[in-house]
């Protein structure tokens, strides 16, 4: 099976080395999509046996993921894993994440921080931001997932072909969830560990996501 791990990276020179090192022991094709980093990310990535795709101008995370998806599909990927460049996910958990798709029972797997595994989440995020995000997903998208904003996800070939990410920004997370459910794909949540090095998305990002989602509903 051709399993591709897509890593969108923007100014991750400090953390991506460890991520790629951890992945180098695993049997996956790794594709790093550099989103026009202004630091040494590309120089850090180059020595590793990975595929490097470079955006000439910064298009944000959603756009980078779709670039990776498109490339992996062209290369005949059977399974596509979305993985962060900042070391917040655990590489060995990819095996548990892809298992439901390998078994053929599911098309999309979302990682969840709320299904048992212990993640040291900042209080504000756990008790305020994510519950609000969950509520927004429920109201705007009519979808209930335990973890509404998790970047660790796996798509089958069929799912990656059907889900074209059009939200270049952070709203891609909600977009993928909405499209997975909207297109009747078989979805499963799997517990994952998230290691927090920094806060990640805060209220400002939350507003931007909401604005992008609403705007896309009006414009389309």
């Amino acid at each position: 099976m051709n399993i591709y791990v897509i890593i969108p990276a923007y100014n991750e020179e400090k953390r991506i080395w460890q991520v790629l090192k951890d992945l180098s022991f695993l049997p996956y094709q790794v594709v790093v999509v550099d989103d026009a980093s202004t630091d040494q990310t590309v120089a850090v990535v180059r020595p590793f046996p990975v595929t490097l795709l470079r955006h000439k101008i910064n298009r944000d995370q959603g756009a980078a993921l779709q670039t990776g998806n498109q490339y992996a599909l062209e290369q005949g990927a059977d399974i596509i894993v979305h993985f962060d460049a900042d070391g917040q996910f655990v590489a060995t958990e990819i095996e548990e994440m892809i298992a439901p798709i390998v078994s053929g029972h599911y098309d999309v797997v979302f990682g969840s921080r709320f299904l048992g595994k212990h993640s040291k989440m900042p209080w504000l995020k756990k008790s305020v931001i994510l519950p609000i995000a969950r509520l927004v997903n429920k109201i705007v998208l009519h979808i209930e997932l335990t973890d509404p904003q998790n970047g660790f996800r796996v798509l089958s070939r069929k799912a990656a072909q059907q889900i074209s990410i059009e939200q270049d920004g952070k709203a891609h997370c909600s977009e993928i969830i909405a499209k997975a459910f909207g297109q009747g794909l078989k979805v499963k949540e799997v517990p994952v560990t998230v290691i927090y090095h920094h806060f990640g998305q805060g209220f400002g990002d939350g507003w931007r996501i909401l604005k992008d989602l609403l705007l896309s509903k009006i414009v389309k």
Partner: protein
Amino acid sequence: MFLQIIITLFVVIILFKLFKQKQNNKISLGGFIVWCLLWLAILVVFWQPETTSYLANLLGVGRGADLIVYISIVVIFYILFKVSVRLNKIDAEITKLVREDAIKHVEKR
């Protein structure tokens, strides 16, 4: 009188530019007509302000000045919406170009 002459000159210049744009096929016929009518209406309002009061009474709005404000707000919002749609489209096109370029110049190890 002075302001009216200035505005007239301004509108004439804009109409001339619109006409040139139409000649060079840079604007659709519909767009050309709408913009011409809009600028001609502005000209009429400046030379014959009472027309706005007449229209306002016709539409049930108190004063001519109020009518102009209402119409202006609607037009501005419409233009803002059009610009935002166009920007989104350009954004999507840029992303597509950047993506194609990235895949074309792939670096494999």
